């Protein structure tokens, strides 16, 4: 059962003029700050997220395996209504857990025993798909920090309109209008899903199409991210002549 509003007009356009399978405009940059080992900034439509990675460094507790520590925090001015606490509330802790799960599927933890990798994500503006953009920014930050990943881990959201047409990359308004919302964090080339979350309800017959739509979105985002990484390498490497590495 989709939400209260019809998210697609008769011409097949969404509220912001996109077609159902179109992503929002993505802009990203690696290496925004100097202090963290790796940092990245990602914009997907109006959602803006900053990610910083510290590590690998000595773990605080004695563990033989690597520890992946995340923190998800939202600036108080990020939402339309002022958010009272930036982090520590239930939603942020949930997202923190999901980030940990997804990233532990991507990071090659066997290469970092007894070490801790800290990933901090700060949402500057929240306009839908907060977790997905946060994860994408975290991936870029990890690459900037030089931490070995199995593969890009990319997240994308998908939904279903009332007329059962799947929509990719939902914005905040589409989220709250009550339609189903599916978030997928996947390893696109391996076609594996590391994390999947869904709320509201729709019939099981549509599940496969919605997941596939989200996976297609993930693949698109991955191409964009890869292009950004290559450009960053070119930019960084032009000074010391390793620009043409890839």
């Amino acid at each position, binding site marked *: *059962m989709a939400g209260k509003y019809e998210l697609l007009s008769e011409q097949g356009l969404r509220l912001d003029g996109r077609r159902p399978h179109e992503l929002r405009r993505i802009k990203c940059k690696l290496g925004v700050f100097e202090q963290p080992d790796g940092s990245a900034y990602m914009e997907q439509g109006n959602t803006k997220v900053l990610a910083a990675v510290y590590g690998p460094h000595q773990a605080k507790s004695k563990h033989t395996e690597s520890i992946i520590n995340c923190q998800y925090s939202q600036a108080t001015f990020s939402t339309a209504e002022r958010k009272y606490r930036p982090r520590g509330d*239930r939603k942020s*802790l*949930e997202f923190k*857990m*999901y980030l*940990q*799960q*997804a990233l*532990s*599927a991507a990071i090659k933890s066997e290469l970092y025993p007894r070490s801790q990798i800290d990933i901090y994500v700060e949402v500057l503006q929240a306009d839908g798909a907060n977790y997905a953009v946060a994860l994408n920014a975290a991936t870029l930050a990890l690459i900037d920090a030089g931490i070995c990943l199995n593969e890009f881990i990319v997240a994308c959201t998908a939904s279903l309109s009332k007329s059962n047409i799947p929509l990719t990359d939902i914005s905040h308004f589409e989220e709250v209008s009550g339609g189903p919302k*599916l978030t997928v964090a*996947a*390893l696109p080339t*391996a*076609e*594996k*899903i*590391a*994390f*999947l*979350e*869904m*709320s*509201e*309800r*729709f*019939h*099981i017959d549509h*599940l*496969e199409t919605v*997941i*596939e739509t989200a*996976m297609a979105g993930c693949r698109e985002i991955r191409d964009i991210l890869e292009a950004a990484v290559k450009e960053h390498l070119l930019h960084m490497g032009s000074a010391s002549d390793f620009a043409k590495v890839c």
Partner: protein
Amino acid sequence: MFMNSNLFEPGKSKPERNFVQLAVKQNQRFDGRRSNECRDVELTFGSDWGTVAVSMGDTKVLTRVTCDMGTPATSRPNEGKFQLNVNLAGVAFLDELQTTHDQRSLTLNSLLERTFRSSRSVDLESLCVAAEHHVWCIRVDVNVLNHDGNLYDASTIATLAALMHFRRPDVTFADDKLRIYTEKERDFIPLLFLHYPVSVTYCIYKSSWQPIVDPTLLEENAADSVIVLSFNSYQELCSLNAGGTAPTNVRTIMQCARNAATRCKSLVDFIRKALSLDEERRLQGDRLVDGLVALIGNTQHKLSFNKLMGYKKQEQQPTPSDKMELENESSEEPEVEEIEAKEEPSKEETGEAPMDSSGWLPQDEDSQELPIPSEASTSNAGKGKPNRSKNKANKKPLPKKQNHSDSEEEARQFI
């Protein structure tokens, strides 16, 4: 999934993990179940409306639903309030100092919220008495009494059963005066539902591609990924959560989803039946269950999934009456060094040929597992649901196989 929990629970150490992974690879589980078999679900209703205790094996959850008059939220002035509260209480498992939002309670809370609140299972508008002034506030308290794996399923079943069991007082609002009637004056009214969701949990291991359903604590802690699906009786997906260190592919998830959908439907039917039985009992004026100990102990009032659903299939069976719950599967013990017990599920009923333990066949065997038909079952026999094994090769769930009239199967395949 629960990365920072302590080491006192089974399944946390490396040797245990390796052992479980190997066992799963060989398609064997510690309590003799198959990979697509669930434990029996037992429901006990309390004397108050809205009190339910659920046991799945050793996992025990107690849920209470209460209501109160209150003012609605300003953003939704004509909807009632629905509050969900999960209490893990440290009773559930050994742990060090519990933080306010530890991971287990967070996931459980989030799942229950999504399954019941976000998917709008309870019709909140029907709880409105006077818009902007008086609405009913429903509060659900879920208490986990013992954790032996699969808290999610037990909690959702308990919550749904409690909500369906619950009755609120009748109320009139006229001329600005609120009048709440007691039970003696007017009967209490049940809640209105838009749909009935329950969940099913699967665990995935890196060593094998096959998910196992309804994990015990040992299996859950050693798992690499956990998939929790909630469906309602109309086969609509209400919430889904899949995550962990072992990435899965879409096909696996779809398979789990299809099997979960059918199991959820049967679970909702079971709850309905159990509710009607309870109602009969109350009408007959039977002595109701008193007190917590009676509620969770072994009492006469347990309503077992296997029995009720099995009854449904048998035409010859007499009207089902309350029976002592018969443990028709030996439950596994979540001990640390558990020797893999390939026990044949035993039955208390009068003799029937034991199931051949070819239950360890890989999942694409189904029909061969139909039991050797035995003689007429006694009325005490726990009937199992017909085989419905999860078949990965064909993507369709197999049709329900009717029990050959008198046969009994011990292998309960609840997918």
